[in-house]
């Protein structure tokens, strides 16, 4: 329980880019390092293809979901446009639009 709490704090800090590794169980440290690496990779991504590639590869390691979708807001039309979807094939979703408001 203590380890779990520490891990949670650690992750919290990882989310905000600072981390202190004292008193953290070794198995958690490894996972934290991996998460920090992943988040750093995201930080360094410079194009949408790379972003989708990272999400595709790493998100499932931490969250047991069946897939993921990312939408981007088009400021011209104020609509969300699907750029990445793992659950339903991308082709059939490429025309989907979610209007805001």
């Amino acid at each position: 329980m203590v380890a779990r709490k520490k891990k949670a704090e650690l992750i919290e800090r990882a989310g905000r880019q600072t981390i202190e590794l004292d008193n953290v169980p070794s198995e958690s440290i490894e996972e934290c390092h991996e998460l920090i690496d992943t988040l750093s990779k995201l930080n360094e991504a410079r194009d949408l293809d790379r972003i989708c590639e990272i999400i595709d590869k790493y998100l499932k390691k931490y969250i047991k979901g069946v897939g993921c979708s990312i939408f981007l807001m088009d400021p011209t039309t104020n609509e969300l446009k699907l750029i990445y979807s793992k659950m339903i094939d991308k082709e059939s979703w490429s025309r989907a639009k979610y209007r805001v408001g």
Partner: protein
Amino acid sequence: MAKYKKFLYIKNEKDEGEIQQIYPKPPNHVDSGKPHETTKIGPFMAAPILNIGSYQLEKGDFKDLKAFIDRLNDETNLLSKFIKNKLSPEILGSLNAYEDIIGNDQLVDRFIDELNNLLGNEFFYSKELFRDISLSREIEDLLLNVPTQKEDILYINRLLLEDVYRDELTKCYVLGVIRLPHVADGGTEFTEYEKRIFNYFAIRLSQSIENANIVKKYNNLVSIYRRIGHCCEYDTTDNILDKLFEVVRFMPEIVGGGYCTIFTIESEMVIPQATTSTSKPFLEIVKRSRSGTYLYDIKGPGLTSWVARNKKPIRIDNISNEKEIRKIDPDLIALRPVVEIEYDDVGPFLAVPIIRDGNSVGVIRVLRRKGARPFKSMDETLLTGSAELLSLVLSNIIRNKEFSIRQSKATEQWLSIFSSELVNKGIIVKEISYAHEINDFFNTPVSGEISEKIKDSLDNLWKKDYGMSKSISLLSDFKNYEDMLLELPGYRDHFIHQFQVFILGAIIIDDIYKIGKEKNKKSFLDFYSSAIKEPGLTKQHADFAWLIASSFHDIAYPIEKSDKIFDKFFSNFMGIEESVIQGIRLEYIIYDSGYQRLIDNLADFYVSLQNTGKGWAFNGNDNRSINVDACFNEALWRNLLKKRDHGVLGALILLHQSLSDSGTRHFSTVIYPAALAIALHGKLLLELQEDIVFEQNPLAFLLRFCDLSQEWGRGNAIIGNPNLSKIDVNYNESDNMIHVRVEISLGNAHAALKKEIEARDVFGRLFSRDMVFELKINDTGKEYSSLRRLISL
């Protein structure tokens, strides 16, 4: 979800009751693609990807930290008072003297930490605190349920802060959404740990998507620069405008989306040149834009006019927010309509001036829909960079338009002087020695002074084969004196007229050469050679003789009119109206200056042409007719002394000048024939007993014919607007002769009558055997023919 900018977690997406609890109103769900397979979906979570990363405050979230502290210190602001009461004494102390905090990073960090602590733990909203604040609709919706979770408190507090400190805090907007559903069958709820990790991904995604947007903007910028550069390569306005449409389509991409219009500034109006649009067809919009529907007066109160006028950008988060607009300038208002979208749909507004050489030449304007994320200062910078490059293109457009207006004005002026008939015929001459130069002259109309172009052209032609630079320089002097002559009542231009006579004759000579070749008829050179009877005559001799005879024939007008010029001086400066100049005794001047010999030679030459016997020679002609010589001499002197005839004087000037130019080299082949033609084109012709026969003296004949015909371009308010209707040179099979026909209109009955009298007199002296020269005066329908006279004889 994106509307509420908030993390969303639903245990079962099929449970609408649960969704209702989270959303005060169901989200407006539009799905035009494959139906969402909701039956398979269980737990669901989605997080907004925000521009600010998370709702917690960071240094970068303050647009102006000093201004924010000022607002906190404002005792009348109830929320500020509330927040300050919750801060530690140390921070509170530093806020009261904010020079302590500004620049002190550690203190700023602590201040922000305390604010974040407040944001996450103290729910700010109460009716009392926010009684004077107008809240956005989204927040009002959210406030229907009092938040209990820390995340919800943080989220709503952050939005409340943004509404209260609009100018001091960066507004949060949604870049996108990340969504993660579970399969219902066998799917378990997401753990808190998973939710947390999911939110971290969303936070990091905000950074990476912003990065990706910057890279995309950079790539778009490179692309748009290429496109703008491509525009610069096009040389006509229409081509540039076509390319500009491509630029405008891509321009919004460099600022991350929107609708764009590129304006130019012409004649104090801000005119849309290319635009993107939504509902209306692109071309219709462009057409309407250009037709004036969306023009702005540069002095007007609108935003775009302000940008053009003040050469400064305007960036507004919401065009409906009058306070935001008035902050820039109290007189500023947002004008409707806008070309891009319906005015009422417009939210964020960004416009930058396009400046060239310190002047506004256009404006780039980008709009977004209401509720869309506002433009950032970086967008303004990127657009300004594009505007700098675009200034080159717009300068080209404006320059091309101005050039085109100048050209059309020049062409109009060109045609009003030379007439379309002369220009159309002039550009196709090809046989005469000066064909290339004449073609060039008419192919490149100028916007400046036509007389300057004529001067240059004649200068070039006179020097081309014979190097007569001194004589041609007199033409420039003539133009200067003519400016004085133009002040005399009734005086009309003679400088351009001489050139027009040259061109008319050149067209006729060219056609005679062409028809001569085709129909095996005598060419102009044949006529010239058989008249002059000099060995070794070439086309260059004949054509050059025509050039100098025609372009020099009125050179002595200033001398003929000198009495009147002097009288005008006395009248203007001294108020003496009667003629005070009694006439200069020309005979003494002629004798003293050695002109007598030139006159004698001219008479000899005249006699030799009139006689069909032996050729002419300076040192005596056995075949000369004493009677003809005496008559010519007498008429010449009479004209010279009493009438100061510009024809005779012009001939003497040419002979005198050419002596210093080329000695006697071309006297018999070019100069004397030209001088005689000049002498005979005035009053002298009418006083002689002999006719001018084309076959005997083609140069004098042609000069008198062309001089009589040339009236177009010399009109004024009194005599109307004469025009050249036709120049027609063709071979007539029925009489086996070449016919030269010129038709003119005087455009005024009085002028037409005067021309009739002149034509009757001149055709009374012009005569031809092998060719026919005809003149028709369209106003009266009267026709004159050198052949008709032959028939009547």
